[in-house]
């Protein structure tokens, strides 16, 4: 019996390892290629590992693209999006979960309806708004519409709803007003929700493609995604350079993921439970 089970486990591991290989191979290939010389990358038959860790491609990209600038743009845009969403979604989520006011249900339903609409519907008018504000090709253009999230509001509302009312009432009896109760008592209680939203938002903002592609077209104002897409035109056959760019674009999110693995996975797992 015991033996049969261990054979079974062996097969499970075998299947999972094959899947792991398929998952990880493109990442390895990206990293290996980025350290190869152009000649090495195009060698026939191909070599797996680079002969030496050659950083030329990385230097190459840093010299020819405003890469530091693009990196900075992406960081600013991501941080701004995260701060905006956390602030606005937490505040609104709290009000929708805990306060009573005229028009509450209607406003909430209108906000939720935004969730059901595919993003392209908003793109042309959003672009026009940014154009009219004279913000095309600026940093704020990258994050302005993304500061407000229906999804985040809904998520934070769910978290606030799950907290027992007594804690809040006790604080109010102690003489805290609504804003103090919110800041000192309620927000710390939904910390796990805030962390989940930070992760979702950071991942979304860092990896976003179509919106920054549309609004910011000068190389200095781009974020990583669109900038990588220009790399293709610039280095048509210089695959190590393309891969070096891809590695640099991917590393921050992958690091963040390894640090906050548990929160990433739990956040995603939660989305489906009451789907």
């Amino acid at each position, binding site marked *: 019996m015991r033996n049969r089970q261990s054979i*079974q486990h062996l097969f499970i591991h075998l299947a*999972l390892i094959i899947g*792991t290989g398929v*998952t*990880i191979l*493109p990442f390895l*290939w*990206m990293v290996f*290629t980025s350290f190869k010389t152009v000649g090495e990358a*195009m060698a*026939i038959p*191909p070599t797996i590992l680079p002969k030496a860790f050659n950083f030329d491609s990385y230097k190459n990209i840093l010299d020819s693209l405003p890469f530091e600038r693009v990196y900075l743009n992406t960081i600013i845009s991501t941080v701004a999006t995260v701060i905006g969403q956390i*602030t*606005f979604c937490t*505040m*609104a989520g709290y009000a*929708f979960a805990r*306060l*009573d*006011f*005229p028009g*509450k*249900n209607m406003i909430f339903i*209108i*906000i939720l309806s*935004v969730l*059901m*609409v*595919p993003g392209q*519907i*908003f*793109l*042309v*008018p*959003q672009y*026009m*708004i940014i154009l009219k504000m004279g913000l095309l090709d600026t940093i704020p253009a990258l994050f302005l519409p993304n500061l*407000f999230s229906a999804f985040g509001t809904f998520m934070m509302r769910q978290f606030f709803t799950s907290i027992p009312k007594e804690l809040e009432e006790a604080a109010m009896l102690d003489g805290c007003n*609504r804003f103090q109760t919110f800041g000192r008592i309620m927000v710390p209680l939904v910390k796990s929700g805030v962390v989940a939203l930070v992760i979702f938002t950071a991942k979304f903002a860092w990896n976003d*493609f179509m919106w920054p592609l549309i609004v910011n077209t000068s190389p200095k104002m781009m974020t*990583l*995604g669109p900038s*990588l*897409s220009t790399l*293709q035109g610039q280095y048509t056959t210089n*695959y190590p350079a*393309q891969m070096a760019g*891809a*590695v640099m674009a*991917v590393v921050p999110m*992958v690091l*963040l*993921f*390894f640090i906050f*693995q548990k929160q990433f*996975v739990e956040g*995603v*797992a939660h989305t*489906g*439970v009451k789907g």
Partner: protein
Amino acid sequence: MSDMAKTKPMRRKTTKREKKEWVAAYIFIAPLVIGIFVFYIYPFIQNFWFSFNDVNRFNISTFTGLENYKALIKDKELYRTLGNTIKYVIITVPVGICLSILIATLLNAKIRGTSIYRTIYFLPSVTMSVAIALVWKWMYNGEFGILNNILGAFGIEGQNWLSNPKTALYMVMIVGIWMSVGYNMIILLAGMQGISKSYYEAAAIDGAGPVKRFFKITIPMLTPTIFFVMITSIIGGFQVFDTIYMMIGKTSLAYESTQTLVMMFYRYAFDYGQKGYAAAISIVIFAIIMLITIFQFVMQKKWVNYD
């Protein structure tokens, strides 16, 4: 929500304290509500209006009634593009979900190292799709790509996968599936872990083997989660853009056979500067997604099992 319904019939005068609470509430929701109205609700209405207008390169619009929709109905490009998109969804969603269920099932067995596997499988879904597309494009490369080299080792002759109109869309689908399996697997695994152990114990007493338990317990109990994953995957599939935009150039021979609805929208809005026509395309995308989602919610009664 229910609190409001309760207070209504009493018809008492609002107290000062309640009014103070209203003010606080409006302050709490104001930034979000204003932002959502300016950047989402108003654009939604404006986009609808644009779809009845001709919006030229200089963003000047003239009302043309149903002209955009009339032109769209006759546009062969729309049907070809819709065909590509449907093909993409019809293949990537079932294959992706089956693979996700398979991996989730394996990970749900009591084996060691599940968290390491979980981490690795999840990795593609935290990675920038643009970077992923670059890597796969390089692996698919007709001359120097690793794929052709691997195939060559098995005696299969490779080709230019991404510029061949017959294969390009399928190659992109592989990337789409590769990207989404880990994410869906996490959701399905959470669903599986929520199934009560007592069902399995009862089945074991009745002598049901692992295969029978999988089909008679796991799958039926998992249908709400499968339904959720299916809905989100179909919606996502209909909006596929990044990977195809990156992998298939506008001048590629395979462009026609891979252009999806969102790519067509993007081209008209931002390459051709025909924003009215693009708005009509986006309304069509919205309508299709809506119809399919409603259809699924109707059909779910037949197969989704809520206990």
